[in-house]
C-alpha cells in the first residue's frame, strides 16, 4: 500500500502536465488582456472575466488532483455509467436549460452556468474506448461498426438539438481514432474528397464540378487496370460524386439557415458581408494582422479592446494572442499545441491496454479539432463555428471539461504498466 502511494505520482508524464499549465496560464493572460479594465486591476476581481477564470483555473487544478488520486480502473469500469449520465444531462438541458446566444445548452445553477455539451466529449471518449477494449471486437462485424456510430451520434444529435452546431461537429474528430483502430484509410481520403467536391461546387457551381469529375474519371480509366470490378467502382464513384455535387447545392440553397449560408459564402469570398457574418472574421483578421511580427505588447492591443471583436474572450481569444504577441506569439502557441498533441499521441501509442490507447487518441483528436477549427476561424480559413480554443477561451465548463479529458489520460498513462 505504502509503495503504491509512493508511486502514485512517479509515472506521471510531467511534461504533459507542465505543457497543460503553460497553455492555461497563457490563456488566462490573454483573457486578462482582452477584457482589461483600468478600474478593475486586481486579478481576482470576481466581477471581471479574468477573476472568474482564475477561480476556474484553481478549481480545475483541484479536479486534476482528484483524478490523479482516483484508481485508474474507475474510468474504464464506469465509462458507460458516465456516458449514460451525460446523455441524461444533455436531454435534461433541452427542457430546463437556459438560452445563451441562441443555444439552449446551459444549466443555470445559482449564478454559475454549466454546459453539459462540454462534458459530453470526454464521456463519449470513455464510452468509445470502453467499447473497443472489449474482447470480441471484429471490424467486419456489423455490431462493431454500428455501436460506435450510435455512441457518437447520440450526443452529437442532442447537442444539435440545442442549436449548438459547433459542439456537435466535434464528434467528427473521432474519425481519426477509428482510423487508428483499423478503419480503412479510404474513409479519410473520401472525407478529404468530399470537402474538395463540396467546396469547389460552392465556388464554381455544380456544372464545372461535374465536368471536372468526368475528366478525372476519364483519366483514371485511361491509366488504371481495366478489370470489370474497377470499372464498376469507378462508374459508381463518378455517379456518387455527381449526385453529391447536386445535393451540396440543394442543401446550401434549401436546408441551411440564412446565417449559416452567409458564413460559408463569406469564407469562400463570394460575399462581403462586413456588417453581419463577415464582421467578426474581418475584425479578427484586422486584430491579428495589426499585430505584425512581434505584436503590440501585453495590454497594448487596441483592436481587441473597445469590443471591436465580439466574443473576444471566448471564441475569438486567439485574436488577442495575434495582436498583442504578434506572429512570434502565435507561432509559440501553435507550436505548444502541436507538441502537446504529438506527445499525447506518442503516449497513447505506448499503452498496453486498448482502452487507454483509444482514449489517448480520442483526447488528441478532440483537442486537435478544437485547435484547428477555432484558430482557423479567427484567421478566416474555416467558417465561423463557435467552439472554444482549449485552455485559452474564457469559460468554466470548457476549462473543466478539457482538464478532465486530459488528466484522465495522464492518469491512465501513469498506470500503463498495471494490467487491467
Amino acid at each position, binding site marked *: 500500500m505504502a509503495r503504491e502511494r509512493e508511486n502514485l505520482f512517479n509515472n506521471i508524464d510531467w511534461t504533459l502536465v507542465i505543457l497543460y499549465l503553460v497553455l492555461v496560464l497563457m490563456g488566462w493572460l490573454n483573457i486578462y488582456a482582452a477584457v482589461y479594465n483600468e478600474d478593475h486591476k486586481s486579478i481576482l476581481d470576481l466581477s471581471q472575466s479574468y477573476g472568474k477564470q482564475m477561480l476556474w483555473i484553481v478549481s480545475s487544478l483541484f479536479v486534476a488532483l482528484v483524478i490523479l488520486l482516483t484508481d485508474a480502473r474507475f474510468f474504464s469500469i464506469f465509462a458507460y455509467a458516465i456516458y449514460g449520465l451525460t446523455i441524461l444531462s444533455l436531454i435534461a438541458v433541452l427542457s430546463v436549460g437556459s438560452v445563451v446566444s441562441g443555444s439552449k445548452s446551459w444549466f443555470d445553477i445559482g449564478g454559475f452556468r454549466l454546459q453539459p455539451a462540454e462534458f459530453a466529449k470526454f464521456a463519449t471518449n470513455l464510452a468509445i474506448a470502453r467499447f473497443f477494449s472489449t474482447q470480441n471486437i471484429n471490424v467486419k462485424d456489423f455490431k462493431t461498426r454500428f455501436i460506435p456510430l450510435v455512441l457518437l451520434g447520440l450526443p452529437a444529435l442532442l447537442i444539435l438539438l440545442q442549436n449548438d452546431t459547433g459542439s456537435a461537429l466535434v464528434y467528427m474528430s473521432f474519425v481519426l481514432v477509428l482510423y487508428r483502430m483499423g478503419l480503412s484509410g479510404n474513409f479519410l481520403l473520401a472525407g478529404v474528397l468530399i470537402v474538395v467536391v463540396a467546396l469547389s461546387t460552392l465556388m464554381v457551381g455544380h456544372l464545372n464540378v461535374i465536368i471536372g469529375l468526368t475528366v478525372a474519371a476519364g483519366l483514371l480509366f485511361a491509366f488504371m487496370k481495366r478489370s470489370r470490378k474497377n470499372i464498376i467502382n469507378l462508374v459508381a464513384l463518378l455517379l456518387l460524386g455527381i449526385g453529391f455535387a447536386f445535393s451540396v447545392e440543394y442543401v446550401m440553397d434549401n436546408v441551411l439557415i440564412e446565417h449559416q449560408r452567409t458564413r460559408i459564402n463569406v469564407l469562400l469570398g463570394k460575399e462581403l458581408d462586413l456588417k453581419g457574418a463577415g464582421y467578426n472574421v474581418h475584425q479578427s483578421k484586422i486584430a*491579428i494582422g495589426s499585430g505584425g511580427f512581434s505584436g503590440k505588447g501585453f495590454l497594448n492591443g487596441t483592436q481587441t479592446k473597445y469590443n*471591436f471583436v465580439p466574443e473576444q474572450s471566448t471564441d475569438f481569444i486567439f485574436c488577442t494572442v495575434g495582436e498583442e504577441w504578434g506572429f512570434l506569439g502565435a507561432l509559440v502557441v*501553435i507550436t505548444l499545441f502541436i507538441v502537446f498533441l504529438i506527445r499525447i499521441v506518442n503516449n497513447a501509442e505506448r499503452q498496453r491496454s486498448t482502452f487507454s490507447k483509444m482514449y489517448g487518441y480520442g483526447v488528441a483528436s478532440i483537442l486537435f479539432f478544437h485547435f484547428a477549427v477555432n484558430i482557423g476561424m479567427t484567421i478566416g480559413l474555416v467558417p465561423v463555428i463557435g467552439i472554444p480554443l482549449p485552455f485559452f477561451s474564457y469559460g468554466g465548463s470548457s476549462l473543466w471539461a478539457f482538464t478532465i479529458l486530459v488528466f484522465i489520460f495522464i492518469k491512465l498513462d501513469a498506470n500503463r504498466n498495471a494490467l487491467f
Partner: protein
Amino acid sequence: MAPKSLASRKLIIIAIFVAVAFVYIGRLFYLQIIDGSYKLSADNNVLRFVTQYPARGLIYDRNGKLLVYNEAVYDLMVVPRLVKELDTAEFCRLLGITVVQYKENLQKAKKYSYYKPSPFEKQISKETYGYLEEKMFRYPGFYVQKRTLRKYPTPLGAHLLGYIGEVNQNTIDKDPYYKSGDYIGISGIEKSYEEVLRGTKGIEIRMVDVHNREVGSYKDGLYDTLAVMGSDLYLTIDAELQEYGEKLMQGKMGSVVAIEPATGEILAFLSSPGYDPNLLVGRVRGKNFTELSNDPVKPLLNRAMMGQYPPGSTFKMVNDLVGLQEGVITPLTRFTCQGTGSSPIRCTHSHQTPLDVYAAIQQSCNPFHWQVYRNTLNNAGRKNFRDNYVAWRNHVMSMGFGHKLGTDMLFELSGSIPSADKFDAIYGAGRWNAMTVRSLSIGQGEILVTPLQLANSAAVMANRGFYVVPHVVKAIGDNHDMGDKFQKITSSIAKEHFEVVVEGMRQVTTMGTGRRYQVPDVVMCGKTGTAENPHGKDHSLFMAFAPADKPVIAIAVIVENAGFGATWALPIASLMIEKYINREVTRTELEERMITSKLY
C-alpha cells in the same frame, strides 16, 4: 488486426496535425507580416465608430398639419480610457461647468464603461459646439455626437403624442439596438410607434490619430452603414378640433374624445389639465417632469384612457338595448314613474307617466330604466337570475365596455362591468339579485368607463350596432394600409333596436335637456349624465353623435366635479360638433363662457 501496420498510422495522424499547423503558420505569416492592408499604422491608430442618428419620423394630423418635428442638438461624448491629461480649467470654462461637475461626469461615464462612449454633457448649445470643435484635438477621448430633439409648433395633444427621453439601463440590457444616451419613446404615440418612428441607426467608421483628430473615413466608407430615417406618421387627429377642445376644457378637469364612427378614427383625444409638450424636451425635462408629477391636478395623467368614471345616465340606452334584444320590452312598453317618490330608485323630477322608452330616454327617467333592467335580469328566460345577469353583461361588453378596446396607444385601462363572480364574492353565491345590484340600471355602482369607451359607445349608437377599434394613426409614411389591426366589431344587439334608442337620443337634444344647445343646422343625438361620485361633486357627462342620419362624429365629454351633464359637458360637446361639422362656431357667447370658466 495487424498491430504493426496500424501502429504506423500514428505517423499519418501526426502528419495531419503538423500539416494543419504549417498551413496556419503560413496564413499568419501572410496576415501579420506580408499583407499590410490589415495593419493599422504603427502610431496606434484607432477606429472610431460614430453612430449616425436617423431623424425621427415626423408626426402630422389628418389634414397634413405638422404636429411634431425635430431639432438638432449636440451631446459631448467621452470614452474614459482615451482621456489623457488635459487643461481641465479651460475645458470646464468652454463647457460652462465646474471642475467638480467635470469629475462627477467623468466618474459616471467610467461607471458605465471604460471603453464604450457615454454622454459626458448633454445638449450643449450650438455656440459651445462651435468653440469646442476647434479645440477638440486638445481633449483626447472626447467627441461630439449629433442627436435630435422633438419640437412642437403648436403645443397640443401632449398626452396623445407622448414624449421621448433617454433610454434606461434596463432597456439597454434587453434590446441591443439602444446604447447609453439614446432616446426612446416613453409614452403616447412616441412609445407605441417607437419602432416605426425611430428609423435605423447607421455607423460611420472614422480613423482617429493619436491626437484625437479624425484623419478620414476608414477604407473610404466601405463598412459604413447609412442611417435610415424614421417613417412619418399621419394621425387621425384633427389638429384644429383638438386645439379647440383643449381651449374649451382649459380650467376644467376631465376629458374629450371624438371618433369618426364609420372608421374608428379618433378625431380629438384630450385630457385636461394638459401641459405644453415642449416642457418635456431637452435639458429642462427632468425639472419640469418633477413639477408636473407633483401637481395635485395630475396634468400627466391621461384621463381620456386612464380615467375611469361611473357613466351615470349616459348608460341608460345600453340597458334599453339589452332589454329590447332580450325581448323584455318593446318600443311600445310603458312603465309608470312616481317622480321623486319612486322606489327603489327615485326620479330626479316629475314628468308624464306612464312613459315609453323614447320618452324615458328623453326624460332620463330612473324608475323606467330600473324596471327594464329588473325585467332583463328576472324575466329574460334563462335558467336562473345569474345566467340572465351573465347574458346582460355579455351584451354590454359587446358594445365595447368593460375591456380594453385595443387601440394603438399604450396604457389603456379597461373600465369595469362587474362580473357575476365578483358579485358572488361580495354577496355570496345566490345571495344577490336585481335589487342588490340595482345601481347598475342607471350607470352607477360598480360600473366604470373611460372617456374613450364612452365615445366609442356613441360611435356604436351612430353606426347602429358596431364599432371599429378606435385608433390614432391613419398612415405610416406612404403606407395607408394599416392592415386588419383595427377590426370592425359588431355588438350582440340587433340593428332595429338601435333605431329605437337613437330616436330617444334625438329627442334629448330636440325636446329634452339638450334643446338649449342645439348645433345650428345639425341634428345631434345625445344623452347627458350626471354621475354621482364618492370623492366629491358629481361629474358632468355627455355623449353624442351627429348628424343623426349620416353621423360623421361621435363624442364623449366628461367634466369632473362640475355638476349636471347639461350644464358643462353638453355645451362643450355641442360646440365641438359645431366646430367639426360647420368648421365655424357662431355661438360665440356660449363659446366665450365655456372657455373662460374655471372649475378647479
